[in-house]
């Protein structure tokens, strides 16, 4: 067998073994915010800068939403065991349903805020009262 092909197959086997081992060793936890301070620090990393004036953490600390002084909204989206900050389009629809925020442009993200969710909704539809 060609030595380069053998080398490639060996590398492929090593890569597969390392990924499996990473999984087995438990490096598959979900992202969790330590505190509101950590959320604030992460919001500040948004493209173009974002200084949160008000923050709401998900009940399980698995995400957060924030508003800056100009009324712009941003969210922390879990990605693996880290978070990604996304500034929301001003026209995006945010619906409060059963204490959860459903954001139109991020359909996979659900932020559970309980009664506080009403204060972040941008649509008039409230499933609790519908």
């Amino acid at each position, binding site marked *: 067998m060609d030595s380069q092909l053998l*080398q490639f197959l060996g590398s492929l086997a090593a890569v597969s073994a390392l990924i499996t081992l*990473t999984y087995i060793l*438990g*490096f598959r936890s979900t992202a969790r915010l330590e505190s509101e301070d950590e959320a604030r620090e992460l919001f500040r990393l948004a493209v173009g800068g974002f200084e949160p004036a008000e923050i709401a953490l998900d009940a399980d600390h698995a995400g957060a939403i924030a508003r800056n002084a100009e009324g712009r909204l941003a969210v922390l989206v879990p990605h*693996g065991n880290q978070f990604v900050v996304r500034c929301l389009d001003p026209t995006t629809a945010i619906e409060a349903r059963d204490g959860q925020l459903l954001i139109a442009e991020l359909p996979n993200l659900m932020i559970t805020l309980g009664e506080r969710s009403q204060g972040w909704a941008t649509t008039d539809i409230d499933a609790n009262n519908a």
Partner: protein
Amino acid sequence: MPFNPVTYAIPVFVALILGELVWSRWAGDSRAYEWRDTGTSLAFGLGSTLAGALTGGLTAAMLVWMHDLSPLSVGWAWWAWPLCFVLDDLAYYWFHRSAHRVRWFWASHVNHHSSQHYNLSTALRQSWTGFVALSFVFRWPLALLGFEPGMILVCAGFNLIYQFWIHTEAVKRLPRWFEAVMNTPSHHRVHHAVNARYLDRNYAGTFIVWDRMFGTFAPEDDAERIRYGIVSQLGSFNLLYAVFHEWLGIARDVWRAPWRYKFDYIWREPGLEP
């Protein structure tokens, strides 16, 4: 086939990643690795070896061509090796600085930065499109100075091997004299940071002295927690998206821009606003 030191280093890379994985687990640092992120990084590394096999011959041929054009010839004298290594590292500094400040070069180099983790697997997150991004031109001056192409490529290989072990949070600080001269895990953590104070700092490959000389050095401040990745985080483990996203971004921006600004989206800095 010419001698490539990186080939012989691969088993050591695998063993060290294994060691760091076990060490992180033992230290209770559950965020040090993420299995899908590690998979993406290692797939990048594997793919880059294939890309290198496809374009390596052409890269070497162009170095030979440049060497033949030059009236200078250093030859294979023993003293040429350390000199070549140091000058290659200087060339790497300028390649790396350009790779962060010119979007065409960044479209390829962004691959190395797109992980939000900083561990030894991140070191193997190497680009597939370095040839398209013309990264090879930065080594042409060495060939024009008369250094043998084979010597340049071996030095470049050892430079890449050196840079592997500095991608870790397991090593905090090294002796002062070492931190003053060499690129270290501490210096390179700053380079991978997205914290505003650290952006576009510490471009060094092996010797941090280039950053100190050219005004791009920033020390690591233990008071501020480092966050890794790119300013606009990918938020995806999709390998093909991770490889090509910035090239797609260039195509989109050039397509949308008025004619007089199209070129700006290629040759100016990444993140240019309309």
